[in-house]
């Protein structure tokens, strides 16, 4: 067994740590208030290479493996979650469909722009009628010769406000649905009949936006199907592969934020004096710190192990769901304790703790709710 993190990945952790401390953390509360990441910071994120972590080198990315990617995410999640979210769709759901199932031409055209961050990519699956039940999408794509006409509404789409290109999941055969009736398209901003709708008002993740995408007789050529003609009806598999991959990265985000909260709590509890001693000397507070640290330790081991398995070429469907489930639920327990340890201050906007508490709540919902993760795990456990 070897638990050493390779030297180049340690260097990356260090770079992100510095970037977070010097550039992101100082403006994290400002971004929260203004609900906007300044453009010069996005530019610095591009220069650092943050938009192309997992896109292969031949398409302009860094070609990091799973371990490399989650280590970057873990570090980057120790500040306002919107920064990670800004790069998240390019590294994950917005690009992976093209990478996994796109034609060579599509990869050569889109991936370098996405990897450099010149373009922002998003992933449009969810709809009012299709959340956990992804196969129930109502957005239709109807064939007219060498074109498809797309009609429908997507909602909750992360980075839709800044996206230049979207992976769009549609239904092409309502009878077949998940079994040959779902098709994935790649559609560029500015295509006639493709509009952005309302930006939704959320509980947290301020600085990162989700919005509706509207398709009103949007006409796109067959060439825009991810993977081209042969992939007509195969889009559900594409969507599931994309989401599968995201589970470990979501675990990493939850873990990084949890670690940050623990660090904040340790510092605060050493300084805050009540009843004549630092509150870290009170047993109830000690118990909370100990439980937080123990769960974080467990989460990190399972995350790194699953990442390692995946980098060995193993299938990690069950493990990835376990990681997403445990890390995100754990993070919410940690955040709850962090608010508790900070007392009244934990409820105040002056402190980042209340922000983490709200932001982390999301992680149990998107990219597959906790319930859906359990469903996947149980299905894997009991399948014949």
């Amino acid at each position, binding site marked *: 067994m070897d638990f050493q993190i390779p*030297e*180049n990945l*340690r*260097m*990356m952790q*260090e*770079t992100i740590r*510095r*970037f977070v401390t010097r550039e992101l953390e100082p403006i994290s509360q400002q971004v929260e208030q203004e609900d906007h990441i300044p453009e010069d910071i996005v530019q610095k994120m591009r*220069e*650092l*290479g*943050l938009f192309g*972590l997992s896109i292969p*080198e031949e398409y302009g990315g*860094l*070609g990091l493996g799973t371990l490399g990617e989650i280590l*970057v995410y873990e570090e980057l999640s120790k500040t306002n979650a919107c920064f990670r979210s800004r790069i998240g769709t390019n590294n994950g759901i917005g690009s992976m469909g093209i990478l996994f199932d796109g034609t060579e031409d599509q990869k050569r055209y889109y991936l370098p722009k996405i990897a450099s961050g010149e373009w922002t990519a998003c992933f449009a699956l969810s709809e009012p009628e299709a959340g956990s039940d992804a196969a129930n999408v109502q957005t239709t794509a109807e064939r007219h010769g060498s074109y498809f006409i797309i009609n429908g509404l997507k909602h909750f789409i992360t980075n839709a406000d800044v996206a230049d290109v979207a992976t769009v999941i549609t239904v092409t055969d309502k009878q077949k649905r998940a079994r040959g009736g779902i098709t994935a398209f790649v559609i560029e901003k500015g295509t006639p009949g493709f509009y952005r709708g309302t930006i939704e008002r959320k509980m947290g993740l301020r600085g990162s936006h989700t919005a509706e995408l509207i398709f009103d007789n949007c006409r796109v050529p067959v060439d825009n199907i991810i993977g081209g003609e042969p992939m007509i009806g195969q889009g559900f598999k594409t969507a599931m592969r994309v989401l599968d991959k995201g589970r470990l990265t979501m675990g990493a985000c939850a873990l990084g934020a949890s670690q940050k909260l623990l660090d904040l709590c340790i510092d605060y509890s050493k300084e805050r004096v009540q009843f004549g001693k630092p509150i870290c000397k009170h047993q109830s507070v000690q118990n909370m710190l100990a439980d937080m640290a123990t769960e974080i330790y467990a989460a990190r081991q399972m995350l790194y192990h699953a990442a390692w398995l995946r980098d060995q070429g193993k299938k990690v469907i069950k493990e990835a769901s376990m990681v997403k489930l445990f890390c995100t639920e754990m993070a919410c327990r940690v955040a709850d304790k962090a608010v508790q340890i900070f007392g009244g201050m934990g409820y105040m906007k002056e402190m980042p703790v209340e922000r983490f508490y709200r932001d982390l709540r999301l992680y149990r919902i998107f990219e597959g709710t906790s319930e859906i993760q359990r469903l996947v795990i149980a299905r894997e456990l009991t399948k014949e």
Partner: protein
Amino acid sequence: MNIIVCLKQVPDTETQIKIAPDGKSIVEDDIKWIMNPYDEFGVEEALRIKEKFGGEVTVVGLGPKRVTEAIRTALAMGADKGILITDDALEGSDSLATAKALTAAIKDLDYDIIFTGQRGIDDDLGLVGASVAEFLGIPHIALGIKVEIADDQSSVKVHRPVEGQTLVIESPLPVLITAQKGLNEPRYASLPGIMKAKKKPLEEKSLADLGVDASEFGEAARKLKIIELTPPPERKAGKIIEGETPQEKAAELAKLLHEEAKVL
């Protein structure tokens, strides 16, 4: 312009330093090692000069294998190649021996400027830069905060702070400059830079490879002996000014500054 940067790996400034049981060294187990911050200024300056005039940046480090990481960081920032001088016989060397080994590694390279940090943040001696310049027989300019290369690339002007003034020193090349805080704001090793660094040449050299006599190095050859390390005295607890109103507190503070601290 070919530039050499000497670099040292030192404990992170945030590391809690513990003195080892022998009373003469520090416990190294839990230390996080970083590139000496003054050397980082040197790397950054070298890269800026290279970007302007072309040429190659070579980083030379000395110490155990872990120093590779500091060298790789410099390569990731944009340096072209690295040399690590590593040899068991170097263990416990003083600044003079370190300078000798560095000189041996540098002397046959092609260079116009050598940067070292003005000092290492661990031992705080500031001897290596000057010693290397002396051994190589080239000029040495200490504490540079600005480096201006002449357009014809034959000389350099270095700004150096002295008591609120600036001294500008001109020197022909080659020259050794020690870097001071203020010289520049070092860049991050970008992620693509880190990936590229894996493929850049990093040579390891033993004392035998450098053609020097191992008996001149290490603990036994030290001219400067460490007798004892002691931790700094514990800081006294601060004083909290009591008082009902801001006026009362201010009066109390003024009184204490006058009577106790004797600064007013």
